[in-house]
């Protein structure tokens, strides 16, 4: 597959850019932050995203989705990154839909159409370690009745406070850090023993701590096979990581553009600061870095669409590179804006905050460079 967007994908890009630019611009993010919104996104926007087909981007057509694939999902996430648009796209349309494609026909028939309609929100309750470590699952699922009883705590559940269904990773066997013995469950957040605490985070997105205290789940709520959840989880995470890379690419692009615009307009010492060669070189270098992140991200999304064996490696490449570039782009953005960049009134700080949170989500650059090295055998 040539490393380029198809004509269809170019159209999706134009429509996604237009949509988020008008329906969920940075100003909306600011308003949600100021209002300390309980879910951290605007439900009307989500409904419109469903109309656009965005929520069903990874849902098969048979289940009412648009089934446009990961490149398209990444394009949508990139557009959201450009505008810092908040919506449960990652948690529901990417993580949720990917997980449910591994469900039973009944589970698929129940949830996937709802996802495509934007009528049901999911949240992945997997991570327990503050530094991402997917096999680090101490939450237990012990046999009970015709199902299991869940006990444990999940600290960093994206959109956990808004979710209609939680996808919980718990251990049916093995020790913490074993990849074998992890099982995924579909859990109703209103069930007895589930406690959801909304957390206030630096990026003002909706994140919750989920505590499970003797939560009874049915055998029919197992997603995939008992003890085999790790493989599904890795696929779900890889889809999420690639889309996070796309989001970070988008936010890097905007931070970069804002900065270059500022360099052209701001004067110091009687000159446009963009005429200072040291800043020019840093901006030019940053331009190159953003281009590299773009290539790596597109490759990862394409590899997922192709079902390539090398997809995990490319996903890690994209997450590592886009993560480092997002940090660099927002750091340089704030620095080159000078004092104004430090003020809450100006938007660039939001990009820096979101970059940091996205970097920490599902593995930072250190995690993914380690994963790449292991994949390449060193």
């Amino acid at each position: 597959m040539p490393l380029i967007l198809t004509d269809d994908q170019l159209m999706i890009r134009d429509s996604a850019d237009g949509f988020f630019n008008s329906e969920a611009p940075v100003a909306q993010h600011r308003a949600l932050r100021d209002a300390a919104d309980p879910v951290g996104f605007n439900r009307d926007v989500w409904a419109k995203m469903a109309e656009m087909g965005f929520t069903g981007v990874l849902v098969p057509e048979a289940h009412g989705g648009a089934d446009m694939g990961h490149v398209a999902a990444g394009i949508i996430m990139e557009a959201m990154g450009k505008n810092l648009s908040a919506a449960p796209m990652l948690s529901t349309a990417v993580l949720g839909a990917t997980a449910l494609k591994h469900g039973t026909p009944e589970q698929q028939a129940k949830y996937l159409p709802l996802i495509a309609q934007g009528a049901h929100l999911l949240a992945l309750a997997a991570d327990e370690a503050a530094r991402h470590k997917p096999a680090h699952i101490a939450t237990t699922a012990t046999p009970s009745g015709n199902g299991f009883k869940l006990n444990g705590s999940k600290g960093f559940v994206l959109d956990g406070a808004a979710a209609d269904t939680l996808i919980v990773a718990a251990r049916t066997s093995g020790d913490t850090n074993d990849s074998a013995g992890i099982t995924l469950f579909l859990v109703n957040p209103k069930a007895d023993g589930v406690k959801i605490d909304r957390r206030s985070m630096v990026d003002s997105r909706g994140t919750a701590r989920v505590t499970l205290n003797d939560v009874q789940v049915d055998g029919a709520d197992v997603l995939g096979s008992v003890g085999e959840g790790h493989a599904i989880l890795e696929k779900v995470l890889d889809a999420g990581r690639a889309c996070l890379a796309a989001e970070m690419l988008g936010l890097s692009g905007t931070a970069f553009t804002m900065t270059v615009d500022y360099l052209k307009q701001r004067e110091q010492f009687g000159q446009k600061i963009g005429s200072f060669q040291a800043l020019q070189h840093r901006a030019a270098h940053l331009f190159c870095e953003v281009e590299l992140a773009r290539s790596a991200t597109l490759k990862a999304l394409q590899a997922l669409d192709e079902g390539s064996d090398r997809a995990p490696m490319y996903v890690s490449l994209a997450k590592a590179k886009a993560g480092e570039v997002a940090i660099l782009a927002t750091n340089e953005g704030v620095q080159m804006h000078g004092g104004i960049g430090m003020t809450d009134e100006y938007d660039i700080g939001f990009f820096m905050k979101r970059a940091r949170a996205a970097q920490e989500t599902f593995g930072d650059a250190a995690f993914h460079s380690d994963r790449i090295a292991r994949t390449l055998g060193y």
Partner: protein
Amino acid sequence: MSDLDAFRAETRAWLEANCPADMREPIRGDDDVCWGGRNCQFKSEGQRLWLERMGAKGWTVPEWPAEYGGGGLSRAEARVLAEEMKRIKARSPLSSFGIWMLGPALLKYGNEAQKKEHLPRIARGEIRWCQGYSEPGAGSDLASLRTSAEDMGDHYLVNGSKVWTSYADKADWIFCLVRTDPAAPKHLGISFLLFDMASPGVSTSPIKLISGSSPFCQTFFDNVKVPKENLMGTAGKGWEIAKYLLTHERDMIGGSDSTGGGQRDSVSNIAKRLIGLDAAILADTALRTDIARHEINALAFSLTMERVMAETKSGQGTGALSSMLKYYGTELNKERMQLLMSIRGSDGLTWEGEEKGDGDLARSWLRSRANSIEGGTSEVQLNIIAKRVLDLPGA
């Protein structure tokens, strides 16, 4: 027993008797810092007493002359005092721009009346000062300031505005750069004025930062009358004082950490605690490499601070190194905060929470990004090194 030993014994006894118990506890946050001033809200009776007692002895400014409210101590005595305070973990009684910035400039450039009026009140924490340097739109180009002070015979009439004035909303007086001669070339028409923030026509508006706090203000002057005797130094020579002060500020920011004092735990210790070891090395090897690289630079930097100070004291110094310390120190501190964010992972993203300290790391991280902007950006420091130290030609 040498004089110094005697001084140490006396000092130790006095501190034991006079430092309140709660002033020997570590500072837990910005709130615990005492800034003094007319409207000072003491957090405890201990805090009030501690300032009063230290101020009375002049030990808030141990090396200032006693006639201006200082302790009149020799450098060696001041070091003994610092050691003895450290021994009992006594807090600093007073944080003050008056002490750190205006005081040294007043001692060098102020006239006798100004010294007598202001220095004792700074020493006792009675007047809290703020600095009026930067202006909206001027940024690093400080000398392009436009706030005017028109000579009205017996007073100046000040009009204009300042930005990034630290705690202007809480300060009693301001030391302020103003343009007294609009016709003179950029650097020459500038003067250094002191005036009361309670003067009619002064107003302030806090600036909210990305870290959520508002330590800075925009400050507006609308026909503010300032008596002529409040001019410090010569009219039109304010730039010299400003440069002198900027060097002080630079040293402060470069050398300090923005986390509010006290001994900082090393990045690697924090990482060890939070991430743990695996076969005796940090379990995350990629992060370990970055941490080691950072700590090498941090160690070499602190040794450089030590060396520069030793060289300056002995007269070996190459001078003009404050830009280096400011540049490198602030860049290192930013890197440190980024590494701590990485080490803490998703927990570091917390903004607000129920537990004490929730959100502190994220806010300190965001705050650290200003280190390389305030007090002269990193770019300005590099310009200064290139021009003044390396003598490279102008563009």
